[in-house]
C-alpha cells in the first residue's frame, strides 16, 4: 500500500491547510561535526507550536543528530561540535543565558529504546519533578505522578503496581513510562527519537495515538524511519539526506507532492 493511498484512506480531522502558527523553536544554519566528520551541513528549520514535526530520511542522514541538538544532548558526546543558531521562544539555546539543565527540562526527550531507570514505576516518573523541585510535598508529587501516568495512558495498567520496578513492564508499557517520565517535568517540547522502533505493532499504535493527543499541550518532534508512521502522526515533515535538510512542508504535501527528486525517490522506496 503506497503512502499516498494511505493518506487518502486515513483523512485526518485537522488536515486543513496550515494557518500561520508561531514557531516554538527555530534552527538557522546548524552545522554539527563529530571530530573531523561533518554530520549536519547547515540546517534551517522551524518547529511550530503544538504541532508534530516528523524528521525522516535514510540512516545516517543526520536526523537524530539534529534532534539531539535541540536539547543539547550532543554536549555529552566527546568531540561533538555544534555551530549555528537554535532558539527556543526566541532565546538562543546555545547562548550564555540558557543552562542545558534548564533547557532539557523544557525540551524533554524520549529515546529509541525504552530506558526506564532501575527504580520503581513511581520513582521513575517522580525522578524529574524531584530533581527540579517541581512538587513541594508528598501529595503534590503523587498528583504529578498520577497525572503524568494518566496522560501517558499508562495509569490504568500500573495503578496497582507503582512500587514495582519499571523494568518489569512490557516494552510498550516501558516506552509509555518513559513518555510519562518526560511529561512529568512539564516540558514545552518533546523530542522523540524513533520511539517505536523497538516495539510491536500494537504497542506502536498505542504510542502513535498518544502522540496525537499530546499535541494539544506540547510541541513534538519525532524522528522516524517509518514513513507510514510519519504520515500518521505528523502535521509537518522534514526530509533529511546526507546531512542536509532537503525539504520541509506539510506532511500531506511532502507525501503527495514532493518538490525534490530525492524526497520523491525516498518516499517511493527507491532508496533508504
Amino acid at each position, binding site marked *: 500500500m503506497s503512502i499516498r493511498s494511505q493518506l487518502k484512506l486515513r483523512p485526518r480531522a485537522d488536515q486543513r491547510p496550515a494557518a500561520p502558527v508561531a514557531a516554538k523553536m527555530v534552527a538557522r544554519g546548524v552545522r554539527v561535526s563529530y571530530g573531523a566528520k561533518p554530520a549536519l551541513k547547515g540546517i534551517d528549520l522551524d518547529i511550530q507550536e503544538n504541532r508534530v514535526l516528523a524528521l525522516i530520511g535514510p540512516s545516517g542522514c543526520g536526523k537524530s543528530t539534529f534532534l539531539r541538538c535541540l536539547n543539547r544532548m550532543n554536549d555529552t558526546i566527546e568531540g561533538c561540535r555544534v555551530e549555528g543558531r537554535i532558539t527556543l521562544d526566541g532565546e538562543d539555546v546555545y547562548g550564555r543565558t540558557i*543552562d542545558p*539543565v*534548564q533547557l532539557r*527540562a*523544557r525540551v524533554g526527550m524520549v529515546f529509541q529504546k525504552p530506558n526506564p531507570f532501575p527504580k520503581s514505576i513511581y520513582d521513575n516518573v517522580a525522578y524529574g519533578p524531584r*530533581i*527540579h*523541585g*517541581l512538587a513541594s510535598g508528598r501529595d*503534590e508529587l503523587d*498528583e*504529578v505522578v498520577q*497525572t*503524568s501516568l*494518566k*496522560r501517558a*495512558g499508562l495509569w*490504568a495498567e500500573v495503578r496497582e503496581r507503582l512500587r514495582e520496578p519499571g523494568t518489569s513492564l512490557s516494552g510498550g508499557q516501558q516506552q509509555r513510562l518513559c513518555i510519562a517520565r518526560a511529561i*512529568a*517535568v*512539564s516540558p*514545552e517540547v518533546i523530542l522523540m527519537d524513533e520511539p517505536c522502533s523497538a516495539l510491536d505493532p*500494537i504497542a506502536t*499504535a*498505542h504510542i502513535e*495515538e498518544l502522540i496525537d*493527543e499530546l499535541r494539544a*499541550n506540547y510541541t513534538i518532534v519525532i524522528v522516524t524511519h517509518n514513513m507510514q508512521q510519519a504520515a500518521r502522526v505528523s502535521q509537518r515533515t522534514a526530509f533529511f539526506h546526507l546531512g542536509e535538510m532537503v525539504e520541509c512542508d506539510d506532511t500531506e504535501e511532502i507525501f503527495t507532492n514532493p518538490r525534490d527528486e530525492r524526497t520523491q525517490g525516498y518516499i517511493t522506496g527507491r532508496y533508504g
Partner: protein
Amino acid sequence: MTDLIERETAAVPPAPVRAAGPRSHYKGEAFARRLRARHAAERRFRRAGAAAVAVAALMLVLLIGSIAARGASAFWETRIRLEVALDPAEVASGNYTAPLRRALHAQFPQVTDRAGRRVLNDLLSSGAPYELEAMVARDPAMVGTVRTVWVRADDEIDQLAKGHYRRDLPEGERGLSDAKVAAADALAAAGALAQGFNTTLFTAGDSREPEQAGMGGAIVGSLLTLLVTMLLSVPVGIAAAVYLEEFAPKNRWTGLIEVNINNLAAVPSIIFGLLGLAVFLGFFGLPRSAPLVGGLVMALMTLPVIIIAARAALRAVPPSIRDAALAIGASPLQTVLHHVLPLALPGILTGTIIGMARALGETAPLLMIGMVAFIVDIPHGLTDSATVLPVQIYMWADSPERAFTERTSAAILVLLGFLVLLNGVAVILRRIFERRW
C-alpha cells in the same frame, strides 16, 4: 483497538496544574536559585572525584618518594684509605686484622690508650680483614710491601658520612659517640674517607652487619623460585585454559572447575603458604627454605591468574578462525594448536608476565615454608636454602640498625625495578601484538 484508545483519551486529564504553572516554574527566580545550588552540588561532587584521584596519586608519590629518599644513598658505600704494611708472618697465619689496625692507628698517632684505639678499630667494618685477604689472594706480590688500600667502613661511619646522624644532637640522643664522630671527621679531613658505588649490596648474601649485607642471595633465590613457578604454572595454566575454553563440554563439572578457579584467584596468599607447609613440607617431606617449594607454592598461587588471562585471550580469538580451520579438515586439536593458540599467545604472555610479577612480589606464603631464614650463602640449586627479595626486605625491615633501613629501602627500589621491567615488557608485548578483529 481504536475504541480502547479513545476511551483512554476521554479520561486524559488536563496538564498538571500548579499554582504558578510548571512551565513558568523554569523561568522563575526560585528555579534559578535551585539551579545554582544544583550546579554548586555538581561542582562539589566533581571536586570530590578529583580529590579521590589526587589522594590516590599523592599516596603513590608519597610511598615511592619516601622509599626512594631513604634508599637512594644505599647505592653508595663509605670506604677508608689505609697504608697497609703486610707482614709475611701475619699473612701466613691468616691474621689480616692486625695490619689494618696498625695502619689505622698510624693515622692517629695521638691516640695511644686502649679505649681510644677501640674506637678507632670500630671505624672499620668487621668484614674489612676479609676484603684484605681477598686482595692478597688476587695479588700475592702485596705481601711484604706497603700498599694503599681502600676498605669498607663500619655502617655507623657510613651513615655518618652520608649525613644520616644529626651532629647537633648531644651524644646520648645521637646514638653515636663524639669520639667516633671526631675520628671520622679527622679521616675525612685527611681525604681518607670516600664514597663509591656499593657493589656489595648486589653481590653479597645476607649478613648481621649492615655494611656487609647484600641482596645477591635473595635475588638469586627469587630468580630460582620464579623459574620453578614459571616452568610449572605456565604450561599447566595454558593447557587448562585451552581445555576449558576449547574442549570442555559445558556441564556442571566444568562449571564447578570454573567457579573453583575464580575463587582460587581470590584466596588469601597466606592460605597457600599453609598448604605448602602441610603438603609439600609435612606430607612430601621436601626441604624447608628451598626455592623448589617456594616455586611450587607460587605456581599454585599464580595458576588461576594465568588460566583466567589465557581463557580471556582465547575467547578473544574470533570463532570464524576456528570454523575456517575446521572446514579445511583440521582436527579440533590441530585447529587449536595451529591457529587459535598462536593468535592468543600475546594475550596469554601478557597475563603470564603479570602473574609472574605478582609471584615476584609475594611474601606471606614464603614465610610459612621457611624462606624467612637467615641465609648468608648464595643458593646454587633448587633445594639449597634460600630466601627471596621480598622476604629479605621483610627481614631487613625488622632490623633495628639505621643502616638496614637504608638497605631495606634500596632493596625495595630494586624489587620495584624488577616489577617495572616485567610490566614494561607486558605493556610492550601488548602494544606490538595488539590486534583487533
